[in-house]
């Protein structure tokens, strides 16, 4: 039982790390109905920029600020160069654009900062804490707290401010949004910048765990099933989806793994997600697509 | 008792529980609350306003409006001055309204909005005094006969004089048109109404903690007896929905503990619930049937309560309902049974003649006797 709880808690905490990445997708999907393939690259790019600055002796918070500004600049550039010319194109076109974007960002990141692996210490010890006979990682708890604060911030931003309602308006109907005087470009720019910020936070936490290296862009693989379960449009859904995926994949790996052969962690979340798709196409929290007959 | 009148009871609550919420109404999507004290003060102003218009003892104030707080306040103000309130149901057909207005030939009318003002002006004497609640569309009307409720309140200073109403006087008069297009009238005296109200309060153990919903006009005797009168005797909170169309949504937001509805009300609610139920033979349908079985074991009832009954009761805003009253014609047995499976035991109240028998049957379902005594004491002291 204790072991079960330990696996479960570990899974839940790991799940929050997935949620962190998934939220980045949710933001952009909400604003433009586009699955942003480049989110993983943004995670990589931000972490790489941050750690490279740090290694060049720039203080922590200055590096953070500079990286954030870089991400905002990136958002601005993306809005100008990619999104603006593609207004009112079908989502698949925009998706392809983000696909290309991911290669560009990855390429630029490696050209700028090189391909080597960097260690990243955020100053949080990863020594396990023993709580009631269970080992819990301090770092995981820290990540969970960070994810919590981030979600709080985002829900304040998107539920309590005009940006939030404008964002939903833009996602819903661009023509109508223009008619009520919403500046499409500005909303996109803001959303991409926020997605960049989320990418930065995810990049730092994942970077501290994996080392800052190219594989960071692969953490999106874990975000996909989370999105399928939690829905593409709900930040809360991304959190719950992350928790479900994290807990179930760990439990499956530990208890099911020995029976059907190890290494099921990679595909199990997708199977789970598929089952969810069959039952509820819009995920747990996603808005149900409403089509007028 | 000499001053067993509606206005006196209002004064009573304003003095013993001035800060408690007397009325709650929804306006522009937001609930507004009014305490007993503030209610008394506003009625005090209305009394002066009516007095200034020449309203006096024995006069009739006709109220042509959907349920709204202004109508209730004006009724009480009219009674304060020893007058009679005559609420008309605005959903009546146009020619019935016209017939009633012409019959009554009123001097004082409260009309809700443009439509009711039009009806009044078309069927009344030249010197009619009309107070209206909604000014929309009325800006172009000749203002001599028309007074805006809010505007009158604004310009009238707060004052308070003693009520001149008497217990044996008529408080309300209900007019209706029968099949032969004859007008019938029924009078309700202060003491009679209050007596009926007290009976209900006693039998149903009503307290000042109830939340009642006034979703209909007080143009039916049942509503005067079993909603208005208990409100004044028990001193609970009366809630007005935003308008007649939003009443179901508003009821859900409120979750009233006391509802006085007609057969139509309950049948509409029943259809709302039935819409949510799954097809009987489907898996979920069977699950619902299983969970709703009255003779189930503890687990089954637990499951039924949390998974089915509670959510369904929530659909119609009956999550906190304690006293669902049926006024007027009886419900079909099927419907009564259906509500019973949801844990809603509807009580039929009609005339004073048969309250005794009914109250004995209903009192059995109530959990504790102790509370009742306290409430009864309060009432005795108060009266």
């Amino acid at each position, binding site marked *: 039982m204790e*072991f079960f709880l*330990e*696996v479960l808690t*570990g*899974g839940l905490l*790991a799940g929050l790390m997935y949620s962190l990445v998934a939220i980045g997708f949710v933001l952009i999907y909400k604003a433009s109905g586009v699955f942003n393939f480049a989110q993983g690259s943004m995670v990589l790019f931000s972490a790489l920029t941050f750690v490279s600055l740090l290694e060049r002796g720039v203080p922590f918070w200055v590096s953070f600020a500079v990286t954030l500004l870089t991400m905002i600049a990136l958002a601005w550039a993306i809005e100008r160069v990619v999104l603006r010319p593609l207004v009112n194109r079908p989502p698949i076109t925009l998706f392809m654009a983000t696909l290309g974007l991911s290669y560009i960002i*990855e*390429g630029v990141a*490696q050209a700028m900062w*090189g*391909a*080597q*692996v*960097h*260690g*990243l*210490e955020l100053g949080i010890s*990863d*020594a*396990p804490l023993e709580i009631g006979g269970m*080992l819990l*990682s301090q*770092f*995981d708890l820290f990540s969970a707290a960070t994810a919590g604060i981030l979600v709080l911030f985002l829900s304040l931003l998107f539920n309590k401010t005009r940006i939030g309602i404008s964002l939903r308006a833009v996602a819903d109907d661009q023509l109508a949004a223009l008619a009520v005087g919403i500046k499409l470009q500005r909303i996109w720019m803001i959303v991409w910048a926020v997605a960049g910020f989320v990418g930065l936070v995810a990049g730092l936490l*994942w970077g501290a*765990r*994996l*080392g*800052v*290296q*190219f*594989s960071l*862009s*692969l*953490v999106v693989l*874990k975000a996909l099933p989370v999105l399928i379960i939690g829905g593409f449009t709900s930040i809360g859904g991304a959190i719950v989806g992350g928790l479900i995926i994290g807990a179930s*994949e*760990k*439990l499956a*790996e*530990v208890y099911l*793994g020995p029976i059907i*052969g*190890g*290494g*099921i*962690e*990679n*595909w199990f979340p997708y199977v789970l997600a598929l089952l969810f798709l069959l039952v509820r196409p819009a995920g747990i929290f996603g808005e149900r697509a409403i089509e007028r007959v | 008792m000499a001053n067993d009148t509606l206005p006196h009871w209002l004064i009573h609550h304003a003095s013993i529980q001035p800060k408690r919420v007397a009325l709650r109404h929804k306006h522009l999507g937001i609930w507004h609350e009014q305490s007993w004290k503030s209610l008394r003060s506003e009625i005090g102003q209305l009394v002066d306003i009516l007095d200034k218009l020449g309203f006096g003892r024995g006069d009739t104030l006709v109220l042509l409006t959907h349920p709204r707080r202004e109508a209730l306040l004006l009724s009480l103000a009219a009674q304060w001055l020893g007058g009679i309130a005559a609420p008309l149901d605005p959903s009546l057909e146009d020619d019935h309204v016209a017939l009633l207005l012409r019959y009554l030939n009123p001097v004082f009318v409260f009309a809700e909005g443009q439509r009711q003002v039009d009806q009044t002006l078309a069927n009344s004497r030249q010197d009619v005094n009309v107070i209206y609640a909604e000014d929309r569309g009325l800006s172009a009307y000749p203002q001599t006969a028309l007074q805006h409720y809010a505007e009158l309140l604004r310009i009238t200073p707060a004052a308070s004089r003693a009520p001149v109403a008497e217990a044996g006087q008529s408080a309300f008069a209900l007019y209706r048109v029968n099949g032969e297009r004859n007008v019938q009238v029924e009078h309700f005296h202060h003491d009679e109404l209050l007596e009926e109200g007290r009976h209900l309060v006693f039998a149903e153990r009503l307290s000042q903690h109830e939340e009642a919903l006034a979703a209909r006009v007080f143009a039916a005797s049942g509503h005067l007896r079993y909603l208005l009168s208990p409100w004044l005797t028990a001193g609970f909170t009366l809630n007005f929905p935003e308008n007649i169309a939003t009443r179901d949504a508003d009821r859900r937001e409120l979750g009233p503990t006391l509802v006085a509805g007609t057969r139509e009300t309950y049948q509409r609610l029943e259809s709302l619930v039935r819409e949510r139920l799954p097809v009987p033979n489907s898996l979920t349908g069977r699950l619902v049937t299983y969970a709703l079985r009255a003779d189930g074991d503890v687990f089954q009832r637990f499951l039924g309560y949390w998974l089915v009954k509670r959510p369904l009761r929530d659909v119609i805003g009956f999550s906190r309902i304690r006293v669902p009253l049926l006024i007027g014609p009886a419900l079909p047995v099927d419907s009564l049974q259906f509500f019973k499976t949801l844990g809603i035991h509807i009580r039929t109240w009609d005339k004073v003649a048969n309250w005794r028998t009914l109250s004995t049957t209903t009192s059995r379902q109530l959990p504790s006797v102790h509370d009742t005594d306290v409430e009864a004491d309060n009432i005795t002291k108060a009266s």
Partner: protein
Amino acid sequence: MLSIIKKPSALIGALTLGLSLLSGTVQAANEQYFPLQSYRVGPYAAGGTGFFGGFIDYLQYVNLKEGGVNGVKFTWSECETEYVVEKGVECYERLKKGLNGAPAAATNPLSVGIAYATLDRSATDKLPLITINHGRTDSTDGSVFPYVFPLQLNPYSEVSAIINYIGDKSGGLDKLKGKKIVTLFHGSPYGKETNPILELLAKKYGFQVTLIEVPHPGNEQQSQWLNIRRIKPDWVILRGWGVMNPVALKTAQKTGFPADHIIGNIWSNSEEDAAPAGAAAKGFISITTHPSGTNFPVLQDIDKTVLKAGKGNLQDSKRFGTVYYNLGVVNGILNVEAVRVAQAKFGKRPLTGEEVRWGFENIKLDDARLKQLGAYGLVQPLKLSCSDHEGGGAVRFQQWDGKQWKVISDWVQADRKLLRPIIEESSHKYAKEKGITPRDCSKES
């Protein structure tokens, strides 16, 4: 796609090879070409840039210092594979023809996947396929795999050496009985390669082995390490690659398993594997075929002639002397040595792949020769032959002190005698499947 291309490409390959040979003699371009299927972007870019950086720097060094081998200069070109098998094959096809008349000497993909995919082609194209420290174990048997060279160390030797080391630490191989060893392996052909041999060794020595897979890329290992914690093993063998390694070390710390009881294999032994794990990596042990560091004459010389001259290939000069870089240099030394040996037999001119292969099979590096090359202590003594394409089979153990690797053991030899029959059994089975008639190595000279 691939299957459609397969047959004609073999034909075209042979044709172009012939053509390039022809043009080579006509133009008399005095250069030897190395096609480089490198990877400088993608998840494994860190390994690729280090290895190919070292390799190129060594070739550059030979060109600058000695004007090539006997006047034959080296030339090379890169083709980005991103460590993706299909791209690696594409690169192979594009580069095998040589460059401007300079014939290709050998391919060095540094990828098990690409190596497997081009295994058959290398025999058809008569172009040596060098899989230093990795690749297919049974390709050690040169009689069946004439063109494949798992130089220095094949996967079986790796495991055998690690078990020998653990035995040593436990006070003798007989003390292994009852010990618990967990192997955490990368979920790929590379990762799975040694599982049978581990089970065999477990049976032989009586220890208990548990094999736990980490799915690619391995950035989440919570459940695996919780399992390990439940098993409470004496040692964990880490058979990782790329990001899986630092994550393993971090997760081990998180679940309270000591780093100094984790032994990394040959692809879990670089700075890039340990450093990102930060403090969690301190005490981590791994094997290596070559030490890191810059204190070898050959490296000092490369620094002087290549790096200081601004001709180094590394983007970040701090990586000079790291494990991956040094492996690249070692690989360069072995490739160049093969060319040198072959030139001695076939003449001082650019050689064909077939001729270079002969060179590889006749490499003989003893201490004296290594000293001559300035690589004594960097490269292990190596003697290859027709039947033995591995040659060494020895490793040293190193430990991460939080900043760098410290060598903590002398050469530990794999039990090659034990492994040889298994290797041959496997290679003969392969020969049978593919209809290959093994060479008679006693007739090769």
